[in-house]
């Protein structure tokens, strides 16, 4: 890897350290050694990290890629891995795992055609604007075509599984968890952060309390919410009784179960958004806000023109990190609903986990790889289109 990182260009901070020209007329050998060590600083600083990531990330990545292309069998004195090509992936898209993975598709209805049409139109406009306004490069073109195709396919899947007779597969369920979850976490985190940076007595107390959910181990949160949402022994039993729902179990209703999991997820991860946004809000300079207040700007104008642009870049990093983490949700559905009813609350990681538990390691790795593609897809869109644009406009 050294060779890949070679020649760190004379750094951005480009000032030759004056090797004490005035004190010693002739630079000693020690000084040349020090100078050369200093020149290596670029490599020294990043090398340990790159090495660690290579050793412990690339190897498992490639190993599980191979496993996803193979069939795992327990054999005498260990196991065997037989290369089967794309069989495991084929199973997910057109074979026996299809309804589990992609969901069962309802026949098209006018509504699904309308939604699909609108999204396709939007994507077409996006492509057309690219062709008309900017110079077309191969990388940009391929990226945008992939984006259009990917989003189009995902929309097609969602409009046929979200309503009517369709059932969500693990892909769509994961997307619901990720996007609904992050949306509410961000909105709640931002509003709470705005409230606690005000000059209110007791705000430190609120800040520490609001941090608490993040501190609990995810497995613990999952069990805690299973206790809380129990309709016959949980604390909300009287409410369920009053509503006549005591025999109704949210576990048996697909959207009920998903909502419960989403609530737990939002409860646990809003603090992450909250605390970083508090830090961002506190660090923005006071003077522009004061000046705007003097000039008679109302709070909404101050937020829109001063605060919002200041916290936008942080928000982008924050959402990217949460996006990556949220795709890996597994503890909550596993503990709260066991993935039920049926497969309704299973996320992609949970899907991989089930295959893994059934010792079908090949299929498990294939699901994990599809998840990797999905996260990379959204991560790339986010970093290259949204984040870039937002940061550039500032």
């Amino acid at each position, binding site marked *: 890897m050294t060779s*890949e990182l070679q020649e760190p260009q004379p750094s951005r*901070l480009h000032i030759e350290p004056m090797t004490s020209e005035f004190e010693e007329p002739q630079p000693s050998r020690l000084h040349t050694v020090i100078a050369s060590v200093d020149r290596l600083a670029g490599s020294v600083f990043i090398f340990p990290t790159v090495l660690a*990531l290579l050793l412990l990330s690339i190897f*498992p990545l490639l190993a599980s890629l191979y496993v996803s292309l193979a069939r795992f069998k327990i054999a005498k004195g260990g196991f065997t891995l037989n290369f089967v090509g794309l069989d495991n992936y084929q199973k997910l898209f057109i074979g026996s795992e299809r309804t589990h993975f992609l969901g069962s598709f309802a026949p098209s209805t006018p509504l699904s055609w309308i939604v699909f049409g609108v999204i396709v139109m939007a994507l077409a406009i996006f492509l057309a604007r690219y062709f008309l306004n900017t110079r077309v490069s191969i990388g940009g073109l391929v990226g945008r075509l992939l984006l259009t195709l990917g989003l189009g396919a995902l929309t097609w899947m969602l409009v046929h599984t979200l309503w009517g007779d369709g059932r969500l597969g693990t892909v769509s369920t994961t997307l619901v968890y990720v996007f609904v979850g992050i949306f509410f976490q961000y909105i709640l985190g931002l509003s709470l952060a705005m409230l606690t940076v005000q000059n209110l007595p007791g705000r430190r107390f609120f800040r520490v309390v609001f941090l608490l959910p993040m501190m609990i181990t995810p497995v613990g949160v999952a069990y805690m919410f299973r*206790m809380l949402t129990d309709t016959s022994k949980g604390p909300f039993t009287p409410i369920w009784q009053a509503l006549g729902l005591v025999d109704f179990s949210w576990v048996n209703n697909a959207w009920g179960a998903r909502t419960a999991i989403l609530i737990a997820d939002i409860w646990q991860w809003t603090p992450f958004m909250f605390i970083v946004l508090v830090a961002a809000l506190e660090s923005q300079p006071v003077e522009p806000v004061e000046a705007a207040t003097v000039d008679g700007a109302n709070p909404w104008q101050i937020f829109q023109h001063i605060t919002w642009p200041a916290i936008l870049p942080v928000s982008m990093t924050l959402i990217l990190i949460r996006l990556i983490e949220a795709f890996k949700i597994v503890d909550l559905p596993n503990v709260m609903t066991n993935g039920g009813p049926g497969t309704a609350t299973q996320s992609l990681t949970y899907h991989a986990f089930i295959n893994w538990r059934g010792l079908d390691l090949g299929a498990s790795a294939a699901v994990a790889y599809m998840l990797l593609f999905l996260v990379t897809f959204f991560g790339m869109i986010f970093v290259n289109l949204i984040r870039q644009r937002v940061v550039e406009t500032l």
Partner: protein
Amino acid sequence: MKRWFQSKSYNTPSPVGRVLSYLILGFWALLILFPLYWLIITSLKISSQVAEGPFYLPFVDFKPSLDAWKYILVGDLSNDTLRTFKNTLIVAPTSALLALILGSTAAYALVRFEYRPRVGAILTFIGCLALGVVAIFLGVPWTIALTVATAIFIILLQTIGRRFQRALGNNDIAFWMISQRMLPPIAVVIPIYILFQRLHLLDTYTALIITYVTSNLPIVIWLMRDYVSTIPIELEECAAIDGASRYRIFWSIVLPLAIPGLVATFLFVLVFTWNEYLLALFLSSANSQTLPLVIAAQNATRGPQWWNMSVLILIMIIPVIVIAIILERYITRGLLIGAVKG
């Protein structure tokens, strides 16, 4: 009347705004604290009190008992609890600290140096690594596979690798690093297990620490990168003119200035390692088990032991809460991720 809607300064809300703020904050605090209250009273219940339906107030609704606490802390489970608690106390802060050291140096490097890794070199490297991995899976001894793959890599790099002059930039490296967190742990856990088995490191602190450090490095790098880039470069230039080396600049200028950011990042990483479950499940058995495993183990064949579980969860969050209260002033001040360089 108008006075109620008027605020004194830009940061102090009007009386009405103040009441509204307290109402919303109080409501959210209630939403946070009620589940924790339920944990506390469940930890004071015995099994029949949980099974017979909801009881809300100790001494009023039900007679609290310390059975679960005794069971966990001095009774049958005390050995497990203390052992795993000690393990967690060793593993989590150590890995958080190591990740912080490695990650912040890399973050500094990504902000202040320019790297131009060449596409050709990277592709040959990945190809050779893939070849090596496949060879090992097919049964070639790993020493031979490694040597051959390295040899091929060096040869190809000198010949074909030089033809691709296209290079990547710092942002690509950063994205590569964060992408290492994208694969779900369930997919990497088996290769990692096999890796540590070969190295005879299973069920040791070392294995857990190495895994945690690498899996948390990307987060440290991303948070610290934003932070380091807000440190004015003039300070470093002054030091460089005075003859300080890059290491000296990093150690005596960048790190002290970045302390608030470091503290906040440390807290995040500590929380992640402290609570990690899946990797610990695979990499530890008797010696290095951590606390989350004990919590999950309370879901016995007789059904979840809610009271024990509650005690364990409470025991587990207390140290983190203490640390969070100590570090709170740093976090809010410190995590001033300024302008994010795209």
